[in-house]
């Protein structure tokens, strides 16, 4: 018998998180027959693409990329999305909320209503169209209270519903991605990452980002404590004072409910420095739709939200 080697090397926290995420993606590839990776062009999903490269290169990704487009996205982000998918040579599927509206499966109460919560409908329609058995997404447990108990492999029933009382126990690194036809598993490889981990990873891996993550000047209206960008879908109202402020976005999503923060940070290093001393959580600062009720994310997840 040879003597076993003494392990003396400890992975840094970023190496550990990356290694765990790669392991999770490979489990999806090994266990699921038709998975898809959700890619929005946002910073978390940009990290996910890097992890997928590390998990599967020199091979191709064993899944296509998909974006559910609300039609309310910043051009800089959708352009980046298309460019990045092309650079990687991977297939990108885009399904649009506006198609669901045309079909009549999404009915808005008003034209300028935030569209985030309606994404679930289009996502479920796309899952059915392609018969995806697993959707890999970039959600993190630190984003919101209801996510703290989310599994890494999260089971959704035929209606796409998440039942917090009926989740599979998840032990060690033994993941259970089994599902019956029509059911779906949502997989979150960066569950254990925090916002600062994401930024540190972007810095370390030198990942490109859409320009709106960095400080830029933009016409802004201050409304109920938040900053509201003035855009085609969110015009200034009569009596609003429009200011030209230096801002950056911490999350990018539906234009009508994603607010920037005032910032001069024009590099990832500067953003990390700012993030490390910030006193407002990511969603608190920038998601206008999450604050309505402390429990609103849990409610949306039960209805099939990612």
């Amino acid at each position, binding site marked *: 018998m040879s003597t076993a080697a003494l*392990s003396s090397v400890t992975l840094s926290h970023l190496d550990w998180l990356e290694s765990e995420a790669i392991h999770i993606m490979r489990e999806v590839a090994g266990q699921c027959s038709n998975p898809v990776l959700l890619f929005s062009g946002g910073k978390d999903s940009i990290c996910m693409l890097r992890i997928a490269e590390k998990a599967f290169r020199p091979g191709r990704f064993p899944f296509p990329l998909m974006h559910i487009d609300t039609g309310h996205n910043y051009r800089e982000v959708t352009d980046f999305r298309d460019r990045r998918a092309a650079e990687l040579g991977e297939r990108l599927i885009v399904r649009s909320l506006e198609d669901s509206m045309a079909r009549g499966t999404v009915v808005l109460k008003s034209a300028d209503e935030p569209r985030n919560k309606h994404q679930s409908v289009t996502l479920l329609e796309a899952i059915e169209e392609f018969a995806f058995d697993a959707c890999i997404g970039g959600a993190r*447990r630190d984003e919101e209270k209801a996510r703290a108990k989310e599994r890494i492999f999260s089971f959704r029933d035929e209606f796409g519903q998440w039942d917090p009382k009926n989740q599979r126990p998840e032990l060690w690194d033994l993941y259970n991605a089994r599902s019956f036809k029509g059911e779906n598993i949502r997989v979150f490889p960066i569950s254990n990452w925090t916002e600062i981990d994401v930024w540190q990873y972007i810095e370390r891996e030198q990942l490109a980002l859409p320009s709106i993550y960095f400080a830029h000047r933009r016409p802004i209206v201050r409304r109920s404590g938040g900053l509201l960008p003035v855009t085609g879908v969110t015009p200034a109202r009569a009596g609003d004072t429009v200011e030209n402020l230096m801002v950056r976005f911490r999350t990018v999503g539906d234009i009508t409910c994603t607010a920037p923060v005032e910032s001069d940070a024009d590099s990832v290093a500067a953003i990390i420095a700012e993030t490390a001393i910030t006193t407002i959580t990511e969603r608190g600062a920038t998601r206008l739709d999450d604050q309505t009720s402390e429990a609103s994310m849990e409610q949306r997840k039960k209805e099939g939200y990612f």
Partner: protein
Amino acid sequence: MSAIEKLPLEDIPDNGLLRFLTCGSVDDGKSTLIGRLLFDSKTILADTLHAIQRTSEKRGLEGVDLSLLTDGLQAEREQGITIDVAYRYFTTGTRKYIIADAPGHEQYTRNMVTAASTADLAIILIDARKGVLAQTRRHSYLAHLLAIPQIVVAVNKMDLVDYSPEVFARIKADYLAFAGKLGIDDVRFVPMSALLGDMIVERGERLPWHDGPTLFEILETTPAIHSAHAEKFRFPVQYVCRPQDSSNPALHDYRGFMGRVESGELAIGDAVTVLPSGLETRVRDIQMLGESLPHAVAEQSVAILLDDEIDVSRGDMIVKTGELPRVSKQIDAMLCWLAEAPLDPRRKYLIRHTTRDSKAMLAGIAFRVDVNSMQHQPADRLAMNDIARVSFKLAQPIFADPYAESRGTGAFIVIDESSNNTVGAGMLL
């Protein structure tokens, strides 16, 4: 000691990541302890703090109730208890922490087992007024069963016993008396007040007689799990990369065996054996993103390329030649039953061990463990939260080590194929 502000990228050592578990009931001040760790490490941000301030006021409480920080889902807010495992995060600049917060009630043994399965350290809370209770023994037994390498006993609510050194000494002696019988030999004790913050992040002034480290100092200096003991190399294959259709002819013969090192280390040139075939070859390369790495260490995800063309697929295992695991179709294990439907001895289940699945049939239940008294009892079936010593017959062999030696290759889950639910958690003997 404040944490997140001093988070420059260079100059500070990265001591990796530590996962720990807190065991205790609501009454022991567990949520307050976690809230205190998050609060004193400056992880709580202003809007979160305002939200719990509002809730504290609505409930008519004096001051901010830090326990609200870990109070997640609507259902449990209504019941006022934690019903599931929640994960929390904080960083000190030198180390990242993942807290698994498991409820303490007896009916939730399965939640504690779940939380303990990934923990490197367990904090067992004792209320200084009550001392060692049945639940303390249960938590300690489960922490030991799940092979958590480090155990810290936090004697909380010292403020309610006038910070008495005698009370602390008595609890310590009581604990050591039963822990010794369980086989737990390495325990550390910290007297504290989570409510007032004594001996957690700051030492405070009220426990001058205690010269041991604070809880935070223990967390910061605990060695990472894979550095302490000799380990055998274990590499379950997750996925085989064969990019034949690539336009690059250099890749036509590429076969990368992808997975994560469960334990041990591997270097280029090492002699390896592939299971189940038993074929021997050498490591030609270790890669990440097509780049060569000189070696791979525990918990690292890599691709391994072999010298000879050997047929290897998902579910196979690469080990170092001369360090073979047990290859077995008959297994003995401690099993925790997780599902509401009891274990049915007549049915076939699926066992998932590393990346390998096998049909399995229960061959026998040796005994069930009463987790409060540690007594062994006869049993012919198992209900949710039961823990028992069992044996299974498998259709396919697994490549296994005793759980106490290697969690990665000693653990398995049981899946009910009729529901696809995960119904059991097993630890090989």
